[in-house]
């Protein structure tokens, strides 16, 4: 990266370190940090959306919709994450490719399943095998977002379902007495008030989601833990300009700091959000706020 890095064996101390930390390999680590943050930024709202849809469906008056909502939470919550990540993503990917195969290659006569092999025609591949590597990585990334969202959406759905039932019944009855329709009651009375009951559960989920990001490697995405292990491993002078012993401890220490800082910041933000949501609510927290102000 820097011009003085051309012969690292002559360097020492901080200069060496500055070269070491800016190798192409370390860039991979930094990119993976960004990947994890972007994943969280996309997954959290999408999972919340899944959860909201699931919870709403589970409360529905239409029976099939209710079964769907309840089935979704029950099944996904019951399957171990790792099994879900290993099986579901490959299945999802193959389902997409199979659909494209049906549409794009109707004349294809060979079976899609040949023994162990899954074979679709070339133009049905997703992404096409001729696409550059970054397309493959982006595709994998969105499969990961989808999988994470489905898993965490199921948990969020259960939290929101509980939160919706926690909103005092008197509030809903009052809304009805004012002549609001079911829909109006839902959007104007129930939804704005349920968050205060949902937040403790949702904040738990957020913390678990942060810590679940290393599962990304199961999906073929190079996450922080993969790079920490790869970079920290013993490096032989034959294969690198920056030989060193087993430094995994230091890399994992850096990870520890990263995750702790991240969860701490999250806690602070969630606390503030909780204060805001509590405002004016008929809960003990809301009551305490009212008294403090008065």
């Amino acid at each position, binding site marked *: 990266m820097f011009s003085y890095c051309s012969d690292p064996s002559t360097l020492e101390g901080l200069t060496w370190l500055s070269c070491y930390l800016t190798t*192409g390999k370390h860039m991979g680590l930094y990119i993976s940090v960004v990947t994890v943050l972007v994943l969280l930024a996309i997954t959290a709202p999408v999972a919340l959306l899944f959860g909201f849809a699931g919870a709403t469906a589970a409360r529905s008056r239409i029976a099939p919709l209710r079964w769907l909502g309840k089935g979704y939470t029950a099944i996904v919550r019951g399957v171990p994450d790792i099994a879900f990540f290993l099986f579901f993503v490959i299945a999802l990917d193959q389902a997409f490719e199979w659909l494209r195969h049906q549409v794009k290659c109707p004349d294809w006569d060979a079976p899609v399943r040949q023994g162990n*092999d*899954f074979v679709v025609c070339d133009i049905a591949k997703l992404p096409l095998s001729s696409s550059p590597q970054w397309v*493959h990585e982006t595709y994998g990334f969105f499969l990961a977002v989808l999988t994470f969202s489905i898993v965490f959406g199921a948990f969020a759905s259960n939290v929101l379902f509980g939160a919706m039932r926690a909103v005092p019944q008197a509030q809903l009855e009052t809304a009805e007495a004012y002549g609001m329709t079911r829909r109006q009651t839902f959007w104007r009375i129930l939804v704005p008030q349920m968050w205060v009951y949902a937040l403790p559960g949702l904040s738990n989920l957020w913390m678990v989601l942060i810590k679940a990001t290393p599962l990304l490697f199961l999906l073929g995405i190079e996450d922080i833990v993969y790079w920490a292990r790869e970079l920290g491993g013993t490096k032989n002078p*034959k294969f690198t300009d920056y030989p060193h012993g087993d430094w995994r401890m230091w890399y994992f220490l850096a990870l520890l700091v990263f995750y702790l800082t991240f969860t701490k910041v999250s806690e602070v933000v969630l606390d503030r959000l909780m204060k805001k949501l509590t405002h004016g609510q008929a809960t003990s927290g809301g009551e305490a706020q009212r008294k403090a102000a008065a």
Partner: protein
Amino acid sequence: MKKLILSTAALALTAGFAMADVVRMGTEGAYAPWNFVNDAGEIDGFERELGDELCKRAELKCEWVKNDWDSIIPNLVSGNYDTIIAGMSITAERDEVIDFTQAYTPPDPSAYLALDAGLDVEGAVVAAQATTIQAAFVAEKGWTLIEFATPEETVAAVKNGEADAVLADKSFLDTMAGQDGLVMLERKEAIGGGVGMGIRESDGDLRAKFDAAIQSMKDDGTLNTLIAKWEVSSQW
């Protein structure tokens, strides 16, 4: 209108053929000198150089993909890449699931690395990478086996005393021997049937192309030169 559809279909088909020329090469990237990630973050090593040369001879455009060892076969059969070129020994068990090209390195004995040169491996705790021929060998012998996901961890286990010895390809252990008091044991195990490229069973054409390319490299001696350069195995 029909003509239009036909010509579009024809176009799509030819485009399909043109695209089929890209071959995605799956490797682990954690097994020096066979394959590893270099300082620049790219795949490097014996198999990188070999694979690039094979693709040139077979007139294929190749792209490298990194995948962890555990799921390297499932991802091949589900079509995420087209070949495995990751120091994978040809075994009957794997051959049931995927096909192999002819071997590009001869069968070499596996070796042990331990802290104590006089160690008797029978009755010792032996570390090996999961789903390798070495792990299968130790399990079959009925010795105590600890498996790890990556080669690096198997060696680290010996250093920190979790295991008494590690069993792996000799060329990989050669890069580690002599460091931190690690010594190679006299005892060697003759397991495995040479290393070849893994290819889907339904992909006979591709296998034939790589077979021919490997044969041509064997014939003109370039394969031996490459083996000598990276010190991965004995020569042909």
